[in-house]
């Protein structure tokens, strides 16, 4: 019982060490991959999402009612295609 409790108490430290050691002992190419992941996430979330991909309906309207009205208006006033 004591043993189990002891292990439970130590669990956060064990997990921390597991990840810490894991990251520390990575090879050079693994570090390169992490760099690529971080750059990719930065470009995606901080450049593309923030600057180029606002949620159209959320930024344009404040309530769901307005959004519904807008989409119904769009759907019921079909546009004629132009080339």
């Amino acid at each position, binding site marked *: 019982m004591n043993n189990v409790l002891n292990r439970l108490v130590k669990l956060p430290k064990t997990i921390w060490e*597991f*990840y810490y*050691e*894991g*990251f520390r*002992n*990575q*090879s050079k*190419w*693994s570090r*390169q*991959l*992490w760099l*690529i*992941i971080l750059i*990719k*996430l930065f*470009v*995606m979330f901080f450049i*593309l*999402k923030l600057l*180029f*991909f*606002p*949620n*159209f*309906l*959320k930024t344009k309207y404040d309530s*769901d009612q307005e*959004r*519904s*009205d807008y*989409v*119904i208006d*769009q*759907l*019921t*006033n*079909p*546009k*004629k*295609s*132009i*080339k």
Partner: protein
Amino acid sequence: MIENLDLSLVDWSRAQFALTAMYHWIFVPLTLGMAFIIAIMETIYVKTNDPAWKKITKFWMTLFGINFAIGVATGIILEFEFGTNWSNYSWFVGDIFGAPLAIEGIMAFFMESTFIAVMFFGWNKVSKKFHLISTWLVAIGSNLSALWILVANGWMQNPVGMKFNPDTARNEMDNFWDVLFSPTAVNKFLHTISSAYILASVFVIGVSAWYILKKTNVVFAKRSIVVAAVFGLLTSLFTVMTGDNSAREIVRDQPMKFAAFEGLYNGSKGAGLVALGIMSTSEGDGTNENMKDFNFKIEIPNMLSYMAYLDGNAFVPGVNDIIKGYTDNDGEVHPPVTEKMEMGRKAIAALKAYKAAKKIDDTVGANEAEKELKANFKYFGYGYFSDPYEVVPPVSISFYSFHIMVGLGMYFILLFVLCLVYIYKGNVVNKKWFLRMAIWSIPLAYLASECGWILAEMGRQPWVIQDLMPTMAAVSSIDSMSVIITFFLFLLVFTGLLIAEIKIMLKQIKIGPNHGGN
């Protein structure tokens, strides 16, 4: 009242979606398939205790890791596009897929941060068994995380289990199980993941063949080939089966897509299957009526009827039959497209009338409009067309992508069988032509996989949601210039990622299994 729709906006939005989806799909299937191949290899290691199998497992795990790291999160871009470029569609679909996709995201995050970490950091730190279980959980988890997005795609091809709410203009889930277990979704999920197993098997065989040609790591390569060829052969047969089921489902729910990918303009009883053909380009006649469909074809008589309905004499509708209306083999009458267009227009007008009546609290008017909407809702999307031939997808693209995919599927079966025969006979090392062919099969596996998506998505045009919402009604009213700019930005980012992937992979392959590490 009729506004003009800038077609270049629709085209650029589609081009952007196609670009990002196809790039995303370069990374996904290798992850889905390789995870299982690694799990099988590690199982052999744990069972046999042979350190050579540990080395094999670790090497392929390294390549898996590279592909995973570069591909991870590339799919989120598609969600950005839904919210910005396709807001009418996103709103119309409702919140149905929002919650499951979010749960999937959270599940994937925890799975990745725990079990993938154990896979890579856990050698010698956790027990062999726990490590093996983690590897299997990564394989199962990553495949399951493809489930919801494929169910969502299945719903768009065959919308079931929902009810349209005219107050909000959103679809609401009526029956969760109908959505999850719709035959379209089930076949799509199984076909997609099993095709990914083929791709990963071909990848492992191709890379191993390179080692054998270079005369290094030959034993390692042969063992890898055996695992991949057995796995690939079994899953190929399953892929053919699920693909065949998909096609049989499509002939009922999306007959126009079926007619397009079979290149069938004029249907008939006892229709023949065009196994090989070159489509005519003489599309001078806008109605396709007198169009000569093929310049050259090899046709197997009655086969198409048999494959579609398991009856060699059954009637298979062609493009023109669907336009003009037809009665199917179960006696169900499918009205001509002009009639569907009329009903669609009524549905659209009824939605407008419903909204107007609600605004002035006219309950009777609203009820009547709702009734009219319900009666015609099935063909809501047809109301946007002005010419019945607008419902025809690009036939040649559908036909060629389907035939390339199926042809390559047959070729991969042959490849897997030959691998096993040569390994069994012990002469694979001398079969240089075969080893070269195996290496060149890697890009072919990607081609087959991308063709599958081209077929599924081009073949369903002009719909984003079958019969309910055409592509042109789904786009947001945004400036097409911003879509053009982001198209090129994506092209840049994804091409950069792909180059990084290929470079790091090739480097790691050159280093080989003896010096690999995490």
